[in-house]
């Protein structure tokens, strides 16, 4: 029982991290129909810079802010400079974002080297408690809290603000949004920056959780995030949340019992979902023609 609860807790923590990634992917896809294969690169840059800033300044809030900021800046440069040229070219988007992913993953090694960098948990968040047989670490709660706050904030933005209304409208009919006198291009950039910022935040939070940042962390995380958006339904925020928790808990359980086979199980889950509901658990069916 204790093991099960511990695994469930770990799973929810994993899921929280996944959600921050998947939410950005799904938002960007929902509005712009772009699958960002560089999302893991933004996560990685957020992680490295936050780790670096925290190691040098010992200020965790600053570290989180810098992690997010770098991802936002990279995101805006990417969207304005590169992706806007391939908005109506699906394969072009895949190739360009993957190219950016390669650059981001490799470039990080130039200042920080190819080996892993250890990442410390801020002392204020390092407390832990024993509840029953379960060890609860304060930092884990912090991550869960952060992702819940983000989830609620995103729901609020989407459903209660004018920006959210424009985004929801743009998902449905971007041309008509322009006819309302709204510069949809700017909205694209804002949403892309928001999604990038979430990836940066996820990275910044991940460092202390994982104990170290590594050059492959971006690819690994991206893979899980893709599986989640496929399972949850590409374009659905709620789907991303539920999918994150499912995959997070499964990853925790499976890696406890079979160490390295977590990916395999996730792929199997994805395949089953696709066979039963090709559009994902919460995705909307797209017409064939």
């Amino acid at each position, binding site marked *: 029982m204790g093991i099960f609860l511990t695994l469930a807790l770990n799973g929810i923590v994993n899921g929280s991290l996944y959600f921050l990634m998947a939410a950005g992917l799904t938002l960007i896809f929902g509005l712009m129909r772009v699958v960002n294969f560089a999302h893991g690169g933004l996560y990685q840059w957020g992680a490295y810079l936050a780790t670096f800033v925290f190691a040098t300044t010992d200020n965790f809030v600053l570290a989180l802010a810098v992690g997010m900021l770098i991802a936002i800046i990279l995101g805006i440069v990417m969207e304005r400079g590169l992706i806007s040229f391939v908005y109506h070219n699906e394969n072009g988007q895949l190739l*360009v974002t993957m190219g950016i992913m390669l650059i981001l993953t490799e470039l990080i090694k130039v200042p920080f080297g190819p080996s892993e960098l250890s990442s410390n948990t801020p002392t204020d968040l390092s407390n832990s408690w024993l509840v029953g047989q379960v060890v609860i670490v304060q930092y884990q709660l912090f991550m869960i809290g952060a992702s819940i706050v983000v989830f609620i904030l995103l729901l609020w933005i989407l459903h209660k603000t004018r920006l959210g209304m424009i985004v929801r409208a743009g998902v449905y009919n971007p041309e008509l949004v322009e006819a309302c006198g709204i510069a949809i291009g700017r909205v694209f950039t804002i949403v892309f920056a928001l999604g990038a910022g979430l990836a940066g935040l996820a990275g910044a939070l991940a460092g202390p959780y994982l104990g170290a940042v590594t050059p492959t962390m971006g690819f690994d995380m991206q893979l899980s995030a893709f599986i989640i958006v496929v399972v949850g339904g590409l374009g659905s925020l709620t789907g991303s949340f539920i999918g994150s928790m499912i995959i997070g808990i499964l990853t925790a359980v499976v890696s406890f019992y079979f160490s*390295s086979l977590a990916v*395999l199980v996730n792929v199997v889950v994805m395949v089953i979902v696709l066979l039963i509901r090709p559009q994902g658990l919460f995705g909307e069916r797209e017409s064939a023609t």
Partner: protein
Amino acid sequence: MTRHTRQFGPLLLILVVVALVPVLFGVGGITNLLEQVFAFALFAMSYDLLIGYTGVVSFGHAVFFGTGAYVVGIFLAHSGGSSGGLLVGTCVALGMSILLSLLIASISLRIRTVYFAMITLAVGQTFYVLSGSQMLQPLTNADDGMTVPLPVWLTHDRPVYYFSLAVLVLCLVLLRLFVRSPVGLVLQGIRENEGRVLTLGHSVYRFKSIAFVISGLMATVAGILYVIAQTFVSTGVYDVSISLDVLLMTIIGGIGTLYGGLLGALIIIVAQTEFTNLAGTYPIFGRYTILFGVLYIVIVRFMPRGIVGTILESIKRRSGQEG
């Protein structure tokens, strides 16, 4: 006749030159490099069948390449490098490749193309993890990889070189026949206008599956060539970076040109080798992947037809002006 010489003349010339390499330059470094190029050229062409003729991008094509390399590697290693092991291994690898491609096709070809890219990436990563997992250690030697003994008739450089070249040429002929076949025509139709092909009464799903199976088979053969050239196999053959390198070879050469993969493989393999050598003196060259990333963007943005595609285009335009 003249049309045929114009079409095949240059290719034949290249073939003769390539065949003479061991005679002119001896065996060793250069033949070993070219053997790698042969394997990756076939891999890239198999990939082109997918992107160039059906329009779907996969980020996990290494699944087939790696399966070819691993299965044949395992059979050779466990049979002590017998010809029988090579033969049986090849058959098993091809069979697995067919099953695998049909499985992936059944879950992913009916849905959006972006899903296909994500699913293939995930499946590829699964194999990467599996090949390195301790559970399969007795079979694969896990993370350490395994040395692969070859049959006696393949133990020298020259036979390996000519064997690889022969297999490449054979596959090239088959691929060319395939794209010129009625099925190839249907595939081009799908690339041009999928909905119309469907309305004519072709089962698009069936043809995409066929293309995927053939493409997978060719990639598997490429993996077999690779393991024969390297006499070693490790988890690296399933690495996503292999898929991405080959994707780059394909788009540099030119999507939908088939032969583009030959040129793309040559460029990328030579570049990788040279950069790795340079990195010994100047460590910054070890980061050449950055350049590959830039190439992705540059090609999509400025040269979507790749090198061969752009050349063919200009030839076509010039002959068009003459006529």
